[in-house]
């Protein structure tokens, strides 16, 4: 790892001010993506600004029709949350199959969403539930947030403060875990909103990162059941093909994971 200067601010405003002072600053939350990348010398920030100890960035609450999880809340805290279990159990399930116990103690929802790894789990929940991303500058609709591999609508220095998930009528998540990394070989999040809209997002499958799956949405809109997907064909255009699986394999996984997610959603 190259040399860097570590800062531990105690407020969002202080963090943003430190960020703009550094020549090539990076925020650090759980560090479970950034530190491995720095160890490989693929990133060498001049300044590392730790968001993990900022109290205003940690916490989970339910107000009105939404479950709001602040950005530096760890996966472990999400798993412990009675509010999350009661309102959107699919999010708790997603968290329980993310990484391993040690990763879940440190990794944060904000880090996952800001990083937008094409095989990460939380981007699928954000897109399928139609969540909104709150930052220190504005509110961004989940639909316009993810911009392809590892890139998002965030501007340089912008801090995610919270993610707000509308509480759905039904939701489920199912993923085929990569046996070594635990990331999604393909994961599918299905949701039926309280207004009756069906939204489905797949992660780990597309060359452009997380995506909606319109053919599955249409089939589930007509008939919300796993069986309704039996005859659906997922186009292979733009799907990932690598040593772990061909694009046809991933297309099939999208369907099978969607069926399991619907069964889990009830």
């Amino acid at each position, binding site marked *: *790892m*190259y*040399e*860097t*200067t*570590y800062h*531990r601010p105690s407020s969002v405003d202080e963090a943003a001010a430190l960020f703009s002072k550094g020549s090539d600053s990076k925020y*650090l939350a759980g*560090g*479970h993506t950034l*530190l*491995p990348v*720095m*160890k*490989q010398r693929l990133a060498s920030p001049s300044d*590392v600004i*730790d968001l*993990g100890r900022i109290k205003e960035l940690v916490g989970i609450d339910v107000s009105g029709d939404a479950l709001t999880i602040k950005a530096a809340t760890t996966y*472990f805290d999400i798993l412990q949350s009675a509010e999350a279990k009661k309102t959107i159990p699919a999010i708790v399930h997603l968290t329980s199959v993310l*990484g*391993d*116990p*040690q*990763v879940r*103690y*440190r990794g944060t929802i904000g880090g996952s969403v800001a990083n937008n790894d094409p095989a990460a789990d939380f981007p699928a929940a954000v897109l399928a539930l139609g969540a909104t991303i709150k930052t220190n500058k504005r509110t961004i609709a989940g639909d316009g947030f993810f911009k392809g591999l590892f890139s998002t609508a965030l501007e340089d220095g912008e801090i995610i403060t919270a993610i707000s998930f509308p509480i759905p009528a039904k939701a489920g998540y199912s993923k085929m875990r990569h046996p*070594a*990394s*635990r990331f999604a070989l393909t994961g599918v999040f299905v949701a039926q909103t309280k207004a009756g809209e069906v939204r489905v997002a797949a992660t780990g499958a597309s060359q452009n990162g997380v995506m909606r799956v319109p053919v599955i949405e249409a089939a589930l809109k007509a008939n919300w059941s796993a069986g309704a997907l039996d005859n659906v064909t997922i186009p292979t255009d733009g799907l990932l093909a690598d040593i772990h699986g061909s694009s046809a394999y991933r297309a099939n996984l999208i369907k099978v994971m969607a069926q399991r997610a619907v069964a889990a959603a009830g």
Partner: protein
Amino acid sequence: MSTIKLTVNGKAVSVEVEDRTLLVHLLRETLNLTGTHVGCDTSQCGACVVHIDGQAVKSCTVLAGQAAGANVTTIEGISKGDELHPMQAAFRDNHGLQCGYCTPGMIMSSIDIVNRHGGKLDEETVRHELEGNICRCTGYHNIVKSVLDAAGRMKVAQAAE
């Protein structure tokens, strides 16, 4: 360079390290606590697991600065003098190690697993919970046996306290 104050195995320490120092290197190189191992460079093997404020984490993926002010426990800090921690004793009795490289991390993770699940552990849960720790020798069978055995011993020890 920064001065970092933290508590390691119950003792207050204050050390000066470069900001890029990982917690595992502070422990091994500055404090000479070489029981904590480094087995990979990818945050996947769990040989480096220590407890930070009671939570089992991979110390190769934490900056020393992130641990400032925290209470860190390593494999050196769990026995009571010559009396092994029940998890250590169970690993010895059940032949839960061969080369021993993964063992400190296995033990620190396993203590955390028992702390979280109490006596309600079954084999499937132990296997699932050990996903962040890799062992290249044992085939895991005796590790799982050790953890289940220790869960019983730790319950008895707690009841006695």
